[in-house]
């Protein structure tokens, strides 16, 4: 399958400073791709190069196979984007703002504008000046202008910034729907894993302008995959003996807790065994995914910065 967007050995230098170093990855139609990194990692710079706001020092960005560098118009017509904040003309109403962007592209009817407006649920706000909109409404206006021309690639820079939990949930639903029903490739940047983890299929992590990793997000762990389980039990020693009697496992004692690495399907059996042998079980937790570990490994080093 041809990638909807492809970054090929992308570099950006400003003066002598290299801001983006050798970034390469591909995003496919129907996929929601997370672009994660601490503040200042180069997310917005990369996005600005993707949409031609900043010149590419070396490497290339291809959109449906068309190079942004060589054929900007041909490439950008497939892209809808919000870069940083969703900014609009504050002195015009919502409708005039959308009309303004619609005039810049071919074949966008009033019908299509109304369709997009109802998709983001702003029908009632169209006659109000954008200056009076709340941040959440402006985010939705930003998405509306990005969707006008039915793009095959949608780039959203920090779309959950400043939204309340209900707003984040709503945006998450739009984005999933766009990807699944319209086969749009969506790129979502964020500096918070928790805000985009639930909407992404894959997440890339960048730091200091370099790609650290690209990971699949698994919403439910596979049955035969091993997870780390922590048990709070009493008495600890007896529990350890019981588990080791029934299963061939390496159990580690941490003060009043036990940890072990097991497949998901053995967890109920362990608990059942403990209960039968009169051990009190207070808590069973599975440790978070490897993605979160990696993310914290990356940003942990510059939490202060």
């Amino acid at each position, binding site marked *: 399958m041809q990638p909807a967007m492809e970054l090929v050995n992308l570099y950006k230098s400003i003066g002598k400073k290299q801001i983006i170093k050798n970034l390469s990855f591909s995003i496919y139609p129907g996929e929601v791709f997370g672009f994660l990194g601490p503040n200042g990692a180069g997310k917005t710079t990369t996005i600005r190069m993707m949409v031609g706001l900043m010149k590419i020092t070396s490497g290339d960005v291809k959109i449906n196979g068309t190079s942004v560098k060589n054929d900007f118009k*041909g490439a950008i*017509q497939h892209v809808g984007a919000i870069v940083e904040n969703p900014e609009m003309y504050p002195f015009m109403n919502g409708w005039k703002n959308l009309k303004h962007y619609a*005039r810049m592209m071919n074949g966008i009817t009033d019908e299509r504008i109304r369709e997009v407006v109802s998709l983001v649920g702003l029908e009632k706000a169209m006659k109000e000046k954008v200056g009076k909109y709340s941040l959440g409404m402006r985010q939705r206006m930003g998405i509306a202008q990005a969707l006008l021309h039915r793009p095959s690639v949608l780039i959203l820079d920090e779309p959950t910034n400043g939204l309340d939990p209900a707003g984040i949930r709503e945006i998450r639903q739009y984005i999933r729907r766009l990807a699944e029903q319209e086969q749009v490739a969506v790129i979502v940047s964020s500096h918070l894993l928790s805000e985009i983890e639930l909407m992404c299929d894959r997440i890339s992590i960048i730091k200091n302008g370099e790609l650290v990793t690209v990971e699949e997000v698994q919403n439910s762990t596979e049955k035969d995959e091993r997870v780390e389980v922590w048990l709070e039990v009493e008495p600890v020693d007896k529990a350890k003996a019981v588990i080791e009697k029934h299963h061939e496992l390496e159990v580690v004692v941490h003060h009043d807790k036990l940890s072990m690495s097991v497949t998901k399907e053995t967890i109920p059996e362990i608990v059942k065994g403990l209960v039968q042998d009169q051990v009190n079980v207070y808590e069973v937790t599975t440790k978070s995914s490897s993605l979160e570990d990696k993310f914290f490994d990356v940003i942990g080093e510059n939490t202060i910065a």
Partner: protein
Amino acid sequence: MLNFLSLLKNEQVKLYSRFSTWSMYIILASIIILAGMITAIFGDVDTEGYGNDWRAELQAENEQLQAEMEESEFAIHENSINKNNYYLEQDIKPQPYDAWAFTSEFSMLGFMLSLFMVIIASGLIAGEFRWGTIKLLFIRPISRTKIWLSKYITIMITTLSMFVFMFLFAMILGSLLFGINGLSPSMVQLSGNEWEQVNIVKEILSQYGLILVELVIMATLAFMISSLFRNSAMAIGLTIFLMFAGASVVIYLSEYDWAKFILFANIDLQPYFGPGQPMIEGMTLTFSVIVLLTYYVVFLLASWFAFTKRDVAGH
């Protein structure tokens, strides 16, 4: 082409969605109304005109003016007397004050118009950067050059519409207050040291035309500064400072030969057409036009280059 027309339409919609643009028209209209009222109520303009024996009337007027001058040393009527004598010598019947004469007086509003155009030109580019909307303009399948051109042409369209508004408003108000005498009236005015009869319509057009030259150059300068610094306060401030200080700088530097190449030594073309001297001796109309054109092209190129080639980085 269709594409470009929609860009122009966008610029017009943005411009006229803001009260500040309308307030410029309101200010112009207010000044014209105020001037009209003052002239109509306190002015000593003659809207009645002279009768059939206007020669005798002019003679009597001159005698009276002469007597006033002899009585008091503060009464200086030489110009009026000379003007009346010119009418008598050339056998031209003086025409009463009317809408044409009224309209021709508003070439003095040229400075006001320059100010407005500088404000608009500064805002067109810097505004997009201030609102952050420049990012959403640049990620459309339209070249930056086209967007730049649509903005520049918008300044020209706005300049023209303000001129037409000023002209029509003064004409309509003038004909209501003073009446109108035909479509091709003439008046007598001092040109150099000589009195001569000129066609008012031609006079108005040439006066407005000369203002237009200065206005276009200043607006282009503001447009360039606005593209370079992406900040409208900077563009407005710097351009207006140069408008005021430019002439004094030229006078200060006038002993040097290269001073005649300074923009502000050339921007006022009036001396080549009427009374007055060019700022530095030996300058000709052709020279000034070439210098102005050179500056104009440089301003446009610098503005285009800054607008289309530079990265749009964060704040």
